[in-house]
């Protein structure tokens, strides 16, 4: 920076004065010089800054150009009315059976909506729409189409042929949105297990599918979780077995004129439910609405899980097993059996007034199904020990199976568990449980004596053994008794050649709906079976509601004539599918 020259440098002024010049000219000259210097400096600065500005503009326009090119290089998307909010994930995982066959999957259908302001001929469109969908109200459609509405749903889900028909109307204001919908390709098979789905939040481009009942609802979070990467949910159900079992049960139910039926086939070692049928059933692709009075008549009612019944004599094996487990009896211990058994003013008799003689061995008590002998055994066991044992078999709590409905199916226990309760519960009266409860308890008792938990999810890897309920010897003795029931007792129709079926029948009079006593012409008949009895693999429970066999002179309503032949037919057809080898050789030798 140069030194600033003063405008009136004294030396020059004095010199000018002495020479007679006007000193003001010097000041003017200096002022001009200073001014020019200043203008030069500002000009240079301005030049630099103008360059900067120019560069800024060049780069700004280049950026706009690049961005334009970038946008132009991407593909356009169709403008549609989109509901605001987060996008809906419609993908739902498939459900498979234990062999990987599809039980539930998704397919793409379409919803139909209208944007009236885009419509060309609303009256014609309304007219044609009513032809395709007779349930639509024409006047209402015309009002909506010609009013001020910008958007309206017409149908939440339409079939492909309906979509084509709407397409043929050719109105640009009628639009389709993709809809994933749940498809159950097997129809009614496993309907109660799968349950069903419904639409949740809806947008134009997709709708949320949420589980409504069954495993669809119980595992809804898993099925909807995108983090699973569409990994399917694999059930323990075997579709072939399910199909066979439903077919036989359906036939049996109609032959025996029963109003309902349920069957559970369970793996004794793992608790996996291989098949579970409840009749009447429904098609989960279009869940029916039910207007009846009695909830148990609803086809959506799962008798195997939700239905709690007095399952009768099938419970006797628990009394026998507990007596052996406690060491107070062996299979050959003789038990008084003369009816009636008196307890206070109550009398316990045998079924249809039978009399099985003064004494019965424990085995024969089961084979003959003696109420009196069982009451004696139960009396010896006592209230506390019986409660403990039944609790350890899972009869006190709802089944933990993976169905939403299961949690609501609490067993009905006596409010005051008196000694009389213990006596009747010994032969299966005064306690109401579901067929699934019974299947789990039979499995626990007969698989060698370790508790199993019923499950619908296919089990992977080795199964850890549950807590022990009885000793292995007791388990074996129980199986032998059950085998004897089929071989020589009340369940002879269930003896399927080669499969060594063991089982126990149960016939219970149906309680009246008004709660006063029992019907004498309506029964719940049950057959709880295990096969093969020497090396148990599966437990099968079959329950028929109001079944009656009319081939004889008198209508027969006992389990031996109803549930047992149905169960026998199921085992005969299902055991080969399950890969159980019939023991024909030893059979032939024995004869």
């Amino acid at each position, binding site marked *: 920076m140069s030194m600033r020259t003063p405008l009136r440098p004294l030396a020059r002024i004095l010199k000018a004065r002495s020479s007679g010049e006007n000193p003001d000219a010097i000041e003017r000259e200096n002022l001009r010089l200073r001014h020019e210097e200043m203008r030069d400096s500002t000009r240079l*600065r301005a*030049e630099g*800054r*103008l360059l900067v500005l120019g560069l800024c503009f060049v780069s700004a*326009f280049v950026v706009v*150009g690049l961005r*334009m090119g970038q946008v132009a290089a991407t593909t356009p998307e169709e403008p549609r009315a989109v509901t605001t909010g987060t996008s809906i994930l419609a993908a739902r995982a498939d459900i498979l059976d234990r062999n990987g066959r599809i039980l539930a999957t998704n397919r793409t259908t379409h919803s139909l909506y209208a944007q009236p302001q885009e419509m060309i001929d609303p009256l014609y469109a309304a007219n044609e729409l009513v032809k395709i969908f007779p349930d639509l109200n024409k006047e209402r459609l015309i009002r909506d189409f010609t009013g001020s509405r910008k958007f309206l749903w017409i149908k939440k889900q339409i079939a492909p042929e309906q979509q084509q028909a709407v397409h043929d109307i050719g109105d640009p204001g009628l639009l389709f949105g993709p809809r994933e919908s749940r498809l159950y390709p097997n129809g009614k098979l496993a309907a109660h297990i799968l349950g069903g789905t419904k639409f949740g939040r809806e947008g134009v481009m997709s709708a949320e599918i949420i589980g409504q009942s069954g495993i669809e609802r119980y595992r809804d979070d898993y099925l909807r979780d995108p983090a699973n990467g569409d990994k399917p949910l694999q059930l323990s159900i075997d579709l072939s077995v399910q199909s066979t079992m439903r077919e036989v049960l359906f036939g049996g139910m109609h032959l025996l004129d029963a109003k309902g039926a349920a069957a559970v086939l369970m793996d004794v070692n793992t608790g996996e439910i291989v098949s579970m049928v409840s009749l009447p059933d429904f098609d989960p692709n279009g869940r029916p609405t039910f207007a009846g009075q009695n909830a148990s008549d609803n086809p959506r009612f799962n008798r195997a899980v939700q239905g709690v019944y007095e399952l009768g004599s099938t419970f006797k094996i628990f009394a026998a097993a507990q007596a052996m487990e406690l060491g107070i009896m062996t299979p050959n211990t003789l038990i008084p059996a003369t009816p009636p058994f008196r307890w206070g003013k109550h009398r316990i008799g045998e079924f249809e007034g039978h009399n099985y003689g003064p004494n019965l061995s424990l085995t024969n008590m089961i084979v003959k199904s003696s109420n009196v002998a069982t009451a004696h055994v139960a009396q010896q066991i006592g209230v506390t020990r019986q409660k403990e044992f039944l609790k350890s078999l899972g009869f006190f709590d709802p089944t933990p199976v993976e169905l939403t409905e299961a949690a609501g199916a609490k067993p009905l226990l006596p409010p005051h568990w008196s000694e009389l309760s213990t006596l009747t519960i010994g032969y299966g009266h005064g306690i109401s449980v579901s067929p699934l409860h019974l299947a789990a308890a039979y499995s626990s008792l007969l698989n060698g004596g370790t508790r199993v938990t019923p499950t619908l999810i296919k089990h992977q890897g080795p199964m850890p053994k549950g807590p022990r309920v009885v000793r292995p010897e007791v388990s074996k003795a129980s199986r032998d008794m059950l085998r004897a029931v089929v071989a020589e007792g009340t369940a002879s129709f269930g003896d399927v050649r080669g499969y060594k079926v063991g089982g126990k029948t149960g016939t219970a009079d149906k309680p009246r709906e008004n709660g006063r006593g029992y019907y004498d012409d309506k029964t719940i008949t049950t057959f709880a079976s295990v096969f093969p009895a020497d090396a148990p693999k599966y437990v099968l429970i079959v329950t028929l509601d109001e079944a009656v066999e009319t081939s004889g002179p008198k209508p027969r309503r006992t389990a031996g004539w109803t549930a047992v032949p149905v169960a026998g037919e199921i085992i005969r057809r299902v055991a080969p599918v399950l890969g159980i080898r019939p023991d024909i050789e030893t059979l032939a030798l024995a004869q």
Partner: protein
Amino acid sequence: MTEMVYGSISVSEGEPVLPRWWRTIDKWTLSCVFMLFGIGILLGLAASPPLAEKNNLPYFYFVQRQVFFGSIGLMTMIFITMMDPHKVRRLAVVGFVGAFIALALLPFFGTDFGKGAMRWFSFGFASVQPSEFLKPAFVITAAWLIAAALEVGGPPGRLYSFMLTSVIVIMLALQPDFGQAALVLFSWGVMYFVGGAPLFLLVGLAGLVVIGGTLAYNGSEHFARRIDGFLNPDIDPTTQIGYATNAIREGGFFGVGVGEGTVKWSLPDAHTDFIIAVAAEEYGMILVFSIIALYATITVRSLWRLLRERDPFIRLAGTGLACAFGVQAFINMGVAVRLLPAKGMTLPFVSYGGSSVIASGIALGALLAFTRTRPQGEIGDLLIRRGR
């Protein structure tokens, strides 16, 4: 002989007006302006019929109006380019006073055409937006004030111009017309910058903007949502921006074909704020790049010519006019591709609008008048002053 010379009318020594004009004018910029106007008419032929149809007007009603007002605008521009810069300044200051009064009277006599902002005077057959005319007049007036401050012993013109700017920005913001307010502020800013704003002040201002922006983003949820919405890469395809983006995508590099575009039917502002989308859809990137090149040429070439200018007033006024013009084009196109948040701003000479095209004509006329080649006293420097 003597009779023939004596007493005759004195002949001016200089060149005739038109040849001199043609020699000294920036012919490139002039051609670019004409081309832009031509493109504007071409696009108007495509973009405005839907609007005319909606209002039951003749098919090319808006095109005819645009041709009419555009001719007035271009003639005004040519007329102004022929003026002496000092005459331009004188007229601009007078015009500024007039426009300023008109702007001040808007709240009392203006109409908002149902758009919620008092911006127009309605005269039946046409409406006038005074802020459009105020802009060039303001730039020239402010340049005059700032330049005056550069004289030794001159008035504190920077302060005056700043006060003037503040008043106008507040008035425009109250209309509300934030776009014009921002433009006015921006043009004053560049003039102050070129006119010698101290560097530390610039750095301080930049710091203030960063700090203020951060505080606003953290403190105000509304502001934060606006910014997040702008930064969000997903575009709702039913908004104006969405339609514009889709139109650009549809067009690709070669366009869908003349008259084949659809965006003009969905966008209410297809003939004004989003005309670049119509251009992109029907003619593709080829035309868009040409338009960008034309604006860039006008802006950068004017700034380049101003580099040689020695008169501080002409330099500043030219800078202000060129930058206002360039930045307006930049903002309009930047909005269409979401480089900038949505802001209604016309594309000078291309968008439909009578006020806009005449005001742009005035601004470009003044700019061209300022960038005409004229002696800059370099020889005087060499002869009189110490050479450098």
